[in-house]
């Protein structure tokens, strides 16, 4: 069923005068000094499935932006390999790389990266212009994208005449205009104020539901990661310390560092009952619940119900197991788990 779109195998990136030599040194002796070198990404292994939404979360300097740039070869990796749809991108020629970006990839940037001398319409049509598409067809596609992100009527504005949120909508429209399979977003909402950020997240979820793409989303905001992700990769000092679903990260943080992020999170909002499912001993008893709902959604039912084990169903209505009511109540009330 699932198909790997991007896979990274022990990817490393070192910035400095002799990165390859330094990598060998670090491999031989992990404690080797880093004077003059920045080891931005260390030995990252990652598989991204088609249609998946992966959020890379980390504080600034954790290497998350560099990692994502390695995936599109905006940054050349020092060691390891990156494979996109079965093709090792390090072996691509310049023309092959350009072709890959033109057909398969779109990217949104933190500070938008819009061209200041072009109108909104020309900015959105830019990737199509690079492909050599004729003016009328590229404007038609660009208008369609602007409609999609809610900026119809602003075609002839210049980026400086728009608010931050609107500029990022232009950036999103531009990244989608080539209908890419893989969509990179590098802290797209970090430069926006909180209310607009919330609005843009909703907008993003709407677009994501509409388009069904493989999404790699970078953020330093743990709440944002929990809200949007299918899977979260938490990075620290260039390493991925945990890569798991939001439920699992909240319920079973792998390290002390991850636990610090999850400490203040209201788990009941994040954890879905399905992640507490256990195989049923006997036959299911009473009405089953959908496993995709969060504990918070089910709070009233949990308190009112009297069964010990409540059966759960997947999206197709098949029974997949049961949840221990006491365990779910523990998550809701914030103890145990």
């Amino acid at each position, binding site marked *: 069923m699932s198909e790997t779109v991007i896979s990274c195998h022990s990817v490393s990136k070192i910035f400095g005068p002799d990165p390859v030599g330094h990598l060998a040194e670090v491999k031989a002796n992990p404690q080797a000094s880093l004077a003059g070198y920045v080891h931005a990404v260390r030995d990252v292994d990652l598989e991204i499935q088609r249609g998946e939404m992966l959020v890379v979360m980390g504080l600034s300097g954790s290497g998350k932006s560099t990692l994502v740039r390695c995936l599109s070869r905006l940054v050349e990796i020092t060691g390891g390999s990156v494979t996109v749809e079965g093709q090792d991108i390090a072996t691509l020629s310049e023309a092959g790389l350009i072709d890959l970006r*033109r057909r398969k990839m779109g990217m949104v940037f933190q500070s938008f990266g819009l061209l200041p001398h072009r109108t909104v319409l020309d900015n959105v049509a830019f990737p199509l212009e690079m492909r050599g598409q004729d003016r009328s067809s590229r404007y038609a596609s660009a208008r369609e994208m602007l409609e999609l992100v809610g900026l119809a009527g602003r075609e002839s504005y210049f980026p400086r005449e728009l608010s931050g949120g609107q500029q990022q909508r232009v*950036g999103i429209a531009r990244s989608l205009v080539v209908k890419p399979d893989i969509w990179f977003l590098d802290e797209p909402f970090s430069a926006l104020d909180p209310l607009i950020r919330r609005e843009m997240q909703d907008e993003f979820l709407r677009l994501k539901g509409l388009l069904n793409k493989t999404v790699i989303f970078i953020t330093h905001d743990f709440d944002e990661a929990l809200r949007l992700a299918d899977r979260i990769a938490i990075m620290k000092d260039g390493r991925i310390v945990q890569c798991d679903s939001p439920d699992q990260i909240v319920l079973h943080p792998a390290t002390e560092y991850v636990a610090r992020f999850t400490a203040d999170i209201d788990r009941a909002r994040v954890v879905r009952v399905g992640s507490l499912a256990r195989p049923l001993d006997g036959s299911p008893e009473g009405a089953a619940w959908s496993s995709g709902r969060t504990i918070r959604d089910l709070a009233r039912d949990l308190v009112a119900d009297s069964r010990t084990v409540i059966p759960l169903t997947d999206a197709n209505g098949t029974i997949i197991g049961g949840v221990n009511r006491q365990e779910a109540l523990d998550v809701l009330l914030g103890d145990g788990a």
Partner: protein
Amino acid sequence: MGAMAKGKGVAQVILAVAVGLALSKALLPQGLIRPPDWLILPFADWINAVFYFVQNDLGLMAVTRAFSDVVEWLLDVTANLLYGKSRWPNLGPIPWTVIAVTAFMAGYALKGWRLATLSGGTFVWIALMGQWKWAMETLSVIVVATPFSVMLGLAMGVLAWRLPWFERVLNPVLNIAQSLPHFAYMIPVVVFIGVGPKAGAIVTIIFSVPPMIRMTILGLKKVPEEVIEAGKMSGSTRWQLLTRVRIPTARSEILIGSTRSSCNALPWWCWPVSSACRGWGKSCCNCFRR
């Protein structure tokens, strides 16, 4: 602290030597006061030798003359259009009213009534002051030299930004070009190009190109990294990235550069006279002669 104390000590020794030399002037041999003739290097001869070698043996003359022929042809065209020199295309001179109205319309199209009044009004005023012919002679050089220096500056600026070693070589050359006395340009230009309006135009180009180069380099270096990455992710080739992302994004610096370039070109109307150019320079010189 140590380095400072040491520097102070050295300074004191140097001061003591200088004071000693000054006090003992009467006792010193003549050769230490005025440099004797045998000490002076035959630098002029060396330079002449190099000059003749480059000029005659290397065939650089042929290159510079070919370039100057292109410039001269362009100058003839503008001279014909602006003040009716009898050269191809033999259309000129354009009536002063037409030029004034054109300037007015260009000003209006660019910025509105105020610029229109300024640009059109200036031409009318020049005509009323009886300076029309000289102004057009000067303008005919400027309209050739300015685009040339803007294009040359842009090309060299891009090259210097692309190749760090070229920038390192270019920087001292630009410093010299901007600080050398203006007449010093004349000598090599007259040797390699000859005299006349084309020499005037080329001296103007040499003098006005450095700011354009400098601002182009600055502008290209200041383009935000994310804009470039966005260009790359949009699937730009290197050439597309340069012409449609980097240069347009650096446009404000490049425009400042070209303005500075034209401003540097304008005062040259006074100099072309020494290369037998015509225009305001000549009229100015006539005033001195009186």
